[in-house]
């Protein structure tokens, strides 16, 4: 599969000269600032920040010196984005700290209705994640399972099901997702490998062992690179092609570039049902900066 992705350093000059709009999440850590700092010299670049209001579940969009409260993501986001000339712009979507439910929906809008001239995504990976004793607790809490905005899709009760779970470091997230699907689905697992370190694979399995074991479901594991969304798209396509009669669910619980892959795949395949548990992420959840890669999504989407 065609995988147009670059290390940030190798494409930074191009980005400085061409990116008109940088969309990012909260910039509270050095890691979250990494991409912005590299292309900050571009004077014509508009920065749009979408983040959660402090002590509030609402999101706000900040751009051009103005702040807008997003009451209803599904109707407010398209209205707000339509005012930024996106269709004439090169957009870089920095997903490092952007809320997953937001960029899932943004990807849908950027592919289907508010199409940028060129679309890139960027992600800065950390050296490691913060542990509490032996457990990764990267979220304050998990919310109820639900659909991403723009991706509420009906289950077909009579059809056999498959769920592809993109696993992350946090345990305790799988059972409820699987039990919400009826009849019990066949399970496929995707793990970011190589991830941020050689132990990634082992750690993820360890953290999810009890649940995987308890579910007693045979599962098949695939590995996807952490640096770009393309492997995940490829894997999902293969699973879907091999199981044409089954309804496919995808639960992106892992790192953001893999979630991005799931988002692109879900936009292009409207029978796929993405399910998610909407964690409220902790502000400080990682240490250091390991790498930063940028993916050329426009080129990819054209050939998909």
């Amino acid at each position, binding site marked *: 599969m065609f995988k147009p992705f670059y290390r940030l350093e190798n494409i930074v000059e191009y980005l400085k000269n061409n990116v008109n709009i940088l969309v990012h999440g909260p910039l509270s850590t050095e890691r979250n600032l990494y991409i912005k700092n590299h292309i900050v010299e571009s004077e014509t670049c508009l920065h749009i920040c979408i983040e959660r209001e402090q002590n509030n579940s609402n999101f706000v969009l900040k751009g051009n010196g103005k702040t807008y409260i997003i*009451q*209803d993501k*599904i*109707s*407010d986001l*398209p209205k707000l984005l339509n005012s930024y000339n996106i269709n004439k712009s090169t957009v870089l979507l920095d997903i490092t700290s952007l809320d997953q439910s937001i960029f899932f929906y943004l990807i849908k809008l950027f592919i289907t209705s508010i199409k940028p001239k060129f679309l890139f995504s960027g992600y800065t990976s950390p050296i490691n994640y913060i542990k509490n004793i032996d457990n990764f607790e990267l979220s304050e*809490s*998990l*919310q*109820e*399972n*639900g*659909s991403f*905005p*723009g*991706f*509420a*899709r*009906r*289950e077909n*009760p009579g059809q*056999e099901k498959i769920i592809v779970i993109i696993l992350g470091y946090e*345990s*305790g*997230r799988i*059972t*409820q997702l699987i*039990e*919400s*699907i*009826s*009849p*019990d689905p066949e399970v496929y697992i995707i793990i970011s490998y190589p991830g941020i370190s050689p132990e990634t694979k082992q750690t993820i399995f360890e953290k999810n062992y*009890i*649940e995987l*074991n*308890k579910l*007693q479901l045979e599962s098949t594991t695939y590995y996807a690179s952490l640096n770009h969304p393309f492997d995940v798209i490829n894997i999902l396509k293969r699973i879907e092609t091999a199981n044409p009669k089954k309804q496919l669910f995808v639960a992106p619980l892992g790192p953001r570039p893999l979630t991005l892959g799931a988002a692109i795949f879900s936009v292009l395949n409207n029978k796929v*049902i993405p*399910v998610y*548990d909407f964690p409220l992420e902790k502000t400080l959840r990682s240490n250091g900066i390991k790498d930063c890669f940028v993916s050329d999504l426009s080129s990819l989407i054209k050939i998909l």
Partner: protein
Amino acid sequence: MTVNPFKAFRTEQLNINPWDYFIRYDKDDSLLGDRPLVYEGGRGSGKTMYFYCNSWLPTLKVAENNNESLNDLFSKRVNVGFYHKVNDTFLKSFKGDRLDENKWLSLFDTYFNYIIIKDIICFLETLTEKNYLEKRKVLEIFDKILSEKIGIEKDEEHTFHIFRNKVDAKLDFIQSFINNDLDINRIILLTPSQLIDSLLAELHGLSEFQYTQFHILIDQFETLSTEQQVRINTLIKKSDSKIVYNIAVKTLGHKTYDTLVDGEVIQRKHDYRHFRIEQDIDEEKYPDFLKSIIKKRLEAFIAGDNVEEFTDINYYLGQYDFDDELNELSKKGDRVNTLRNEVADLIRKNQKEKEAIEDIIDSLTKCDLLNLRLHKALLLRKGLTPEIIYKNFLEYNSASNKTTTAYHNWLNPAKPNIIVLLCREFRHPKKYYGFNTFTYLSKGVIRNFLELCENAFDIAIANGFSFNEPRQLTKEEQNRAAIETSKSNLMELKQFRGYGRPLFNFIINLGNLFYAIQCNPKHTLSQLNVNHFSIKIIEKDEKVETLLRMAEKHNALLVDLATKVDKTNSPDIENYFLNYLFCPYFKIAYGKKYSISLSANEIMQLSEMEGINNRKFLNRFNLEEEIIDQGTLF
């Protein structure tokens, strides 16, 4: 490789035909009837199994398997169920600023109508394929009730396929609107059950369905929003003997009893029949109910002679043997001697009259281990002298009817707690095995029993067990299974949304507290098997209420319904006991005896990480730090 018959324990896992595994808890049960059913229960209490197995497809399959013709089936009173499991991830998206609240709820009503209508179309199509119904008659009814609403023109072809597709198209419209891809004006909104009731009423007009009672079976009701529940409550209220709306709901998941009519609510007994298996099933019948469920599973694995014996779970699990466990402990000679010396020292310390002291020591120490440990506890009780204990022991030993003696009343109820104490003091693992133990541990949650069996057979299979040469599972295999099942269910608590971590902390700390109390070296055995607690209702603030509700909802605590529902005996308090399934993890005795009272503050303290290690707790229950350290900590 031997396959484990208990691998699948959720209805959703029994892909081929759950009906093959379905057992009625009572042959005469008639949960589905003229009155709507509200089936409440925790995970694994059989709600989905019951609802699914009463839907039309399994009903037709059973008739077919029994060589019963459709004419025969429908010639008598028969329930035809339309099963719908609430698709909560989808329904949660029925909100936002694009519509006002009432319109969203009308959209929900519309969605619900079409979902059920689609199933009714499938049911009728199946009956026409089987030549029970005349296709023309059914399509005429569809045309009368559905055509206008779903957009089928007069000159358009009328087939089942077209009707199904049009209904699907309506559902697609709703989906597109929710995802902001379509305008609401493209959707004709319906009132609750508008099409369902009209269609089913027309069907009742057909002679083929004159004895049929239609049941709408709504599973996972708890995942509906409060306002959506109001819509379904309204349908429960208006149910009649021909069309009945029933719900299966997780414990405490029925958030409101309001209906759409101002001031009107649905009430137990008047408007619906409430069924909760832990409460309603006869305790004496429960073991037989479990045996029947297991028998169905084992039948597929056993052939030839002795089918009866080898499909009886008793054969594999046997019964817990108290004497056997005591015998194992009695073999620890050094420990027994140390205990004898401790008892003798206590007698010397407490006996003022020194004359008969050697006789007392001799009698109270040279006895069975069970009595010996009881004597130590009794000697720690205030007001009981060695002489009184000695006299009572003599009386007990010489009595022809021991059950009438005071000593018997000390000894008999204390046995489980004595075993727990001895296991700790003799560094001997407490064992949980036997059909009676597994039945007790599952406490009304059928899935827990299946899980215990599954783990036990998994371990046995790894040890070479095969159904070709069936054998009883060893105590060790069963005990390991009990501990693993207990642990995995406990760990699962962490993941429950919103309250997972505090709930997990609370249960871990509570279990450790019960362990510390049951194993306290200073235990006087006057308060036995402490594994539940009471709280004054007046003390329950919002935080405590939420925590306890979550614990009850997720089966971590079982509420003593005698105190929760029937307030005649103890109107001011409520009792909660730790799910017995967790007892093997905490190495404690099960069985309801004594409770401790906890204040709201103490409950909240236990939900924190520090919890039981707090000095105040140790002092309050007269515990030593040492025992906490030996308990099961995180």
